[in-house]
């Protein structure tokens, strides 16, 4: 990147922004040349500075801030105390070290403070500690001895084994999970088998004996059963019987009602039929008289037609009667609505009463 590499290697420019960075390419070469020539001077920026810079101001600046990218604050004792309290909590003791570290980091503790807190709290996981030390290669003593090695060299060594251990821990936890699952399945199977055995041995015989008892009781103690207090089932049966009887009574009553209604209707129909017949006869007689009066010539035809008409009307009225009786029968079977069936059945009846000609086709 042209503009970025044009940044001069002078460390003071690192602390004050350099506005003139829109550089032409010749300065680029200058910068790269300068850079190549003094790689040794740039490390001095980050370690305790050697006065290799030209100006004394720069040197003092460097000494006061040996590296801009390092925590230059002193350790905050209260933060360390809080961290020690946190780490001493029993629940925290059970968690992996990496989670404890990341929690403290999230709370804003610097590395030195975290390491100091870890140093102060005795680590209850000797296996973790000893393996980390063994991998460290620096301390091979027992777990209780804390390393006196510099903090920073401990960090990556501890970080790597703690990460590895946490991963191993999680993996062993996973393996425990699997064995846990197998154990659970086994337990379930055993319990199922046990219940099956128990059912077979204890419950089934009990069932059989109870059945036998019931049968025997029925055979022997019929009378006693009658006299003694009836059981719930018998009470229920009696209640059911009473209910059935009541229902039967109700059904009978409704049926009788229906029958009576049917009879009434029949009588009514017969009456109307008779009336019909009477009307027909009167009509025929009147027509005959008219014809006799009006047409003395065509006597034979009129008299011939009338009895036929009369017969036809009688048969048609009989047919209508039969038709409606069939309707009644079909409707009486449906005992749900006898009153409603009466009306539609009577409705066509007046029609037939009014218009006997409709039945002629």
């Amino acid at each position, binding site marked *: *990147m*042209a*503009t*970025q*590499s044009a*940044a001069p290697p002078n460390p003071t*420019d*690192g*602390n004050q*922004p*350099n*506005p003139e*960075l*829109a550089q032409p390419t010749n300065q680029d070469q200058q910068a790269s040349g300068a*850079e190549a020539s003094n790689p040794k001077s*740039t*490390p001095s*920026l*980050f370690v305790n500075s050697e006065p290799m810079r030209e100006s004394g101001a720069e040197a003092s600046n460097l000494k006061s*801030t040996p*590296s*801009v*990218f*390092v*925590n230059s604050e002193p350790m905050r004792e209260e933060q360390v105390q809080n961290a020690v309290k946190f780490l001493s909590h029993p629940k925290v003791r059970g968690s992996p070290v*990496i*989670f404890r*570290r*990341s929690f403290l*980091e*999230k*709370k*804003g503790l*610097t*590395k030195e403070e975290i390491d100091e807190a870890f140093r102060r709290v005795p680590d209850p996981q000797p296996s973790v500690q000893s393996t980390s030390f063994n991998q460290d290669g620096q301390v091979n003593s027992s777990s209780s001895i804390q390393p006196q090695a510099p903090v*920073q*060299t401990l*960090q*990556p060594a501890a*970080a*790597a084994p703690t*990460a590895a251990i946490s991963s191993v821990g999680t993996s062993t936890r996973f393996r425990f999970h699997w064995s846990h699952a197998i154990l659970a399945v086994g337990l379930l199977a055993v319990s199922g088998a046990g219940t099956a055995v128990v059912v077979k041995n204890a419950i089934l015989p009990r069932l059989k004996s109870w059945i036998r008892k019931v049968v025997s009781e029925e055979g022997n103690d019929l009378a006693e059963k009658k006299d003694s207090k009836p059981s719930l089932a018998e009470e229920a049966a009696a209640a059911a019987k009473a209910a059935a009887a009541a229902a039967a009574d109700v059904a009978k009553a409704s049926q009788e009602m229906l029958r009576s209604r049917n009879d009434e209707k029949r009588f009514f129909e017969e009456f109307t039929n008779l009336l019909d017949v009477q009307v027909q006869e009167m009509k025929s007689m009147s027509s005959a008289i008219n014809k006799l009066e009006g047409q003395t010539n065509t006597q034979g035809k009129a008299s011939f037609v009338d009895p036929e008409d009369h017969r036809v009307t009688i048969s048609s009225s009989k047919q209508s009667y039969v038709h409606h009786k069939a309707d009644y029968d079909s409707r009486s079977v449906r005992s749900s609505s006898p009153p409603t069936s009466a009306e539609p059945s009577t409705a066509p009846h007046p029609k037939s009463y009014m218009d006997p000609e409709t039945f002629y086709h």
Partner: protein
Amino acid sequence: MPVFKTPFNGYSVKFSPFYESRLAVATAQNFGILGNGRIHVLDLPSSTSPQISELASFDTADGVYDLAWSESHDSLLVAAIADGSIKIYDLSLPPTSNPIRSFLEHSREAHSADYNPVRRDSFLSASWDDSVKLWTLDRPTSVRTFKEHAYCVYSAVWNPRHADVFASASGDCTLRVWDVREPGSTMIIPAHDFEILSCDWNKYDDCCIATASVDKTIKVWDVRSYRVPISVLSGHGYAVRKVRFSPHRQGLMVSCSYDMTVCLWDYMLEDALVGRYDHHTEFAVGVDMSVLVEGLLASTGWDEFVYVWQNGTDPRAF
């Protein structure tokens, strides 16, 4: 404004430090969850070609999560692959002889790659196996492994001024500053209460870092006084996926988020949000600012589009 449609979902876009009209896009199939990946190297339209064109493309067996251009060779690319490997591609060679190197050491997905802009011979890879690894091109194995984070490391970025200093952002909600010469991290900054998805150094102030987190904010820190951030930038609707400082203006930075927008911020101003582009129709996951052309932005997202536009213009305009 040139738009390129990738067949897979975009993950990262980077401008080439050598050619101002060249950029590389890392893509992964099926949103990077499962499937293949592809790296596209695109040429922006110029006087000779009016359309954005694909210079080369490399297929990978697993999704490509990030890539970095080499600072030493104009045709080398470092790709972080979802199977944990780091692959080096050479554009000057035919696709059959690519990748020229494949380093498989991470046990989980490699999420980011960054090339050292000062030394120009080494690069970092950050992985979901909680470690950051330092590599050089000539060695077959990693030079150093930095394993201190307690959760996935989402990003590792070199300091643009100091050759051996880098920062790593992790899902354990801390930002760590490392020095390659030291055995462990030199600073631990508990930057957010939620996962930190990205970090970047200020190109003009080598002590200033920005972190982008799942808590929808971007915090700008000064490592000299890291207890309190310099500023907290809110404005995104969802997690901020990536943040990049501008190589041209000190306070300017660009960020992309799962709210499908790309936002421009200037943390030195009172009202920090200076621009917002909502051209994407899916998560915007990759964004970059060109070093060679001031104000040129590129972004990519899961909607399989790569947009390249000048700051202040509409990315979707033609």
